[in-house]
């Protein structure tokens, strides 16, 4: 019995040490797992408005020489860092032609985090069809809290512009969207293209932070785990 005490003490110490080590491991692994979040952003619009080029410009940093009609969907990813957090922006480049998308529409809108509506500034019809795209988006139960942006592509074709900026701006305002007019082809507009997706990523990050706070409230502890950083690195 006399020998049992030191043994017990030693065992307790060992178990404490093991607990601390396992807790540290758990903390590290949790930190690691929480690091990379995925934001699913879908890009929709009429065929031949430049959805593929836009997504390629954002993810690949270049303008594709030759593109063909997207069949179904193309997945593109880009890892970005916002306020020290690594985020994976998962861009779904959807097909514009009805025959290439009809069986996939449900998958586009499932758990989508943000929607990018694209139109061609040199084609009025593509702008007029935006209503249909928005209706389709709403019809698939995409919440109004899901951020949406409007992108007018092919701004480099100055002489052929059919959609005036004012009209597009009014439309974007009426649907509570941000408007970007850009060109995937023009290398000078590259930053503008990036800013479309980065802006969405920032908004999504801000939204997600709020959700986490809500989760904490549910636990009965109202506490901000991520105090706002005065030196914010958000590109918005």
């Amino acid at each position, binding site marked *: 019995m006399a020998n049992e005490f030191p043994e017990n003490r030693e065992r307790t110490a060992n178990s404490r040490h093991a607990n601390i080590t396992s807790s540290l491991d758990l903390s590290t692994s949790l930190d690691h797992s929480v690091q990379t979040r995925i934001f699913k952003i879908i890009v929709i619009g009429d065929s031949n408005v430049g959805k593929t080029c836009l997504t390629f410009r954002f993810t690949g940093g270049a303008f594709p020489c030759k593109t063909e009609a997207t069949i179904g969907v193309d*997945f593109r990813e880009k890892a970005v860092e916002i306020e020290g957090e690594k985020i994976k922006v998962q861009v779904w480049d959807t097909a514009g032609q009805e025959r290439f998308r009809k069986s996939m529409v449900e998958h586009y809108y499932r758990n989508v985090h943000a929607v990018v509506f694209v139109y061609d500034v040199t084609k009025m019809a593509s702008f007029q069809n935006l209503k249909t795209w928005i209706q389709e988006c709403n019809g698939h139960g995409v919440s109004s809290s899901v951020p949406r942006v409007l992108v007018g592509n092919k701004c480099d074709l100055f002489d052929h512009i059919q959609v005036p900026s004012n009209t597009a701006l009014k439309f974007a305002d009426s649907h509570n969207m941000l408007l970007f007019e850009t060109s995937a082809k023009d290398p000078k507009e590259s930053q503008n293209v990036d800013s479309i997706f980065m802006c969405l990523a920032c908004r999504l990050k801000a939204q997600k932070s709020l959700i986490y706070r809500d989760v904490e409230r549910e636990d009965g502890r109202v506490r901000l785990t991520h105090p706002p950083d005065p030196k914010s690195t958000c590109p918005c």
Partner: protein
Amino acid sequence: MESWKSHVRAELFHRDCRQRDPFSGLFDKVSRLEEMLDFHIKLWQSSSKENSNSTCPNEGGTLYLRVNEVEFLNQQLKQKIADLTSNIYLKEAELQYCHSQVARYRTEAVLLAQGASCLKSDLEEYEYQLECQSKELTALRREHSTLTEEMATTKLQEEELLERWLEEKKQEAERINKHNATQERWQRLAGRLKKRYRGRSRLPPCVALAANTNNSSDSKPKQVEHLASSS
């Protein structure tokens, strides 16, 4: 009527019937006789003025009439000769013109014959070409039908491939959506675990130790299970 007169009359009638222009000889003769009669009357009148006292024509008068008649006939013949000569010149000119025309037409005929032979050879060539082309057309039609069939097969294959591709894309999209959902669920779970761990690490060491010793090994899975079920 005397027989010789009726004979002459009948012969004349036959002749006139045979002629293209019936009775033209008679009319000519009558007009010539009338002409001669006028001439004789004129001569008679002029000679009667000169010899008003003589009542019947003598032999000299008959000669005079004869001479004048011959002269008149001579004049007429001269006129006729002149007319015929000019007519001959005219005919010669016409003949020359006809010769030139004949020569021209002959040249033209030669040229036309050459053209015809050329056209004939062309026609033969074209016929040969047509035959070749018709054969080629038949071959092309056959090829076209083969190609059309192949195209239909290819289109069918393309449709099938497209469907397969779409199906694969659909599956990929489903997989990615599932992965996203799992990732999101895991992150939420990991976030809660992390917060729970932080809250636990802030407790006084003795409480934490008691909690650790009480729960020792099975506490974490329970938490995980609890969180997983709540999420």
